[in-house]
């Protein structure tokens, strides 16, 4: 599904954690609906205002019935600070849905599935778990956070189990999320999080000969495959994170 560019209205913005925001907007175009793993280029400022580039933010949730489109993001710099200032009724410009995303219907046929997330990398995993559950493959969720976890309650209806690790030990296993995961128990592992975490997951999966798909992040200008600013050098040649990805076969992108 190709991307369109339009202005949307904010339904609500909440703060699940100090530097985390959940932004819900009203999606209008029924012929271009997003699926799990896709993202949008968000811009809550004028074309001639700073920062120059729009910010790529993954789809956290989408309600096909109401068209409510939700993003979960971390406030880091000028762009996300401007997004964080949005209030209900405000408008923003979005381009999307962008990227390949996860083909949940096809993946659900794989058998037993583990979904592994770290920090704000859990954002695209909610819609993924939901889509897998609806396709009859309720996954086991493994999540790692530095400290207090956020957003996990939303996963409860869609996951067979939720396995939590924190760096600080404040909740769940005191250590890495990869300590909890045994890929041999699964026929497919889907992951999104810090590169170091995803590389660890990919390594475990390679050793267990289990297929692993990883959703990458990239600095990008267009989000459409036009600028080649987000190119990722894979074993099968250069690929755009924005259009060929963000979901890749982990074996292709990580040196294991």
């Amino acid at each position: 599904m190709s991307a369109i560019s339009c202005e949307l209205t904010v339904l609500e913005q909440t703060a699940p954690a100090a530097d985390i925001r959940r932004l819900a907007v009203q999606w209008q175009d029924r012929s271009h609906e997003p699926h799990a793993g896709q993202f949008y280029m968000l811009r809550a400022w004028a074309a001639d205002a700073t920062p120059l580039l729009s910010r790529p933010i993954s789809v956290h949730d989408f309600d096909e019935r109401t068209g409510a489109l939700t993003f979960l993001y971390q406030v880091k710099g000028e762009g996300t600070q401007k997004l964080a200032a949005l209030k209900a009724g405000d408008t923003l410009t979005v381009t999307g849905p962008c990227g390949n995303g996860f083909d949940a219907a096809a993946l659900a046929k794989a058998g037993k599935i583990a979904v592994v997330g770290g920090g704000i990398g859990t954002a695209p995993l909610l819609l993924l778990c939901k889509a897998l559950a609806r396709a009859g493959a309720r996954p086991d969720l493994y999540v790692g956070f530095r400290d207090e976890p956020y957003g996990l309650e939303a996963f409860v209806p869609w996951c067979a189990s939720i396995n939590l690790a924190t760096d600080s030990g404040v909740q769940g296993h005191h250590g890495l999320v990869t300590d909890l995961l045994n890929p041999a128990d699964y026929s497919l592992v889907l992951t999104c999080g810090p590169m170091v975490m995803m590389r660890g997951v990919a390594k475990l999966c390679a050793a267990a000969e289990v297929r692993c798909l990883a959703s990458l992040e990239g600095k990008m200008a267009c989000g459409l495959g036009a600028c080649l600013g987000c190119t990722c050098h894979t074993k099968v040649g250069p690929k755009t994170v924005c259009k060929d990805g963000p979901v890749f076969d982990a074996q292709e992108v990580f040196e294991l």
Partner: protein
Amino acid sequence: MSDLHVDFLGKRLAGPVVGASGTFGFGPEYADIEDLRLLGGISGKGLTLHGQPGNSGERLYETPSGLMNSIGLQNPGVQHFIDHELPAMRQCGTTVWANLGGHTIEENVQGVEMLCAAGVDFIELNISCPNVKQGGLAFGIRAADASEVVSAVKKVCTVPLIVKLSPQAESIPEMCKAVEAAGADAISLCNTFQACAIDLEKCRPVFSNTFAGLSGPAIRPIALRMVWQAVGAVSIPVVGLGGILTGRDALEFIMAGAACVQVGTANFMDPKACTRITTEIGQWMDAHGVKTLEEIRGCARG
């Protein structure tokens, strides 16, 4: 209603705005975003004969009103473009500008032969990419070097040949005169400005190549000065580009004498920039009783 068409090198462009190379893919990327039939053309991602993976490390960096890039001419190669991208580019409903930047004269000649045989509307010969070590900008600094490659390419080029210049040419007027004398049918300028950024935390340049190309509104007035100089130096058409974000920006280039304009970085600030700018030009013309672009082209020169 104003008439926005441009007669350019024997073709009729629907409007004066062309998507600039490196910012517009090969066109289909924007097909669902805006009506590409309103554009004057699409200049495709810069090609090299054999293709290349582009640069490693950071490729993008934002500056005040600007964007630095170090893509390094990542492209699939001329034959892959002809087989896989050109058919869809032709379906975009606008003119096809194949942008080519060879590492050697021989590569440029061979690439142009292949592209002309495959059927493109224009060749835009890029002698101005700042992000590749060999070729690219090497032809774009000294007028004599540019003249040599343009003459060689012109001999085999069966479609109109546009030569895209670098702002780093030793002298813009001398460079323009040299490529005109060597057979260029038009000139486009300018490509990005070589620039630098330092990562304070790493105490190193942001880009692996140290320098990268700066584009966007930050460089627009300098680009406009260069387009002014180019128009004054040659009698062939000049395509103006550099930081155009609005219809008013584009009109400045046209009043300086540009035949048409290209829009690049603005596509990243507003994916509908090309069509929005086209609309804004028309609105300005309507408000000022200007019926055709011909009436105002070069009017600022007195």
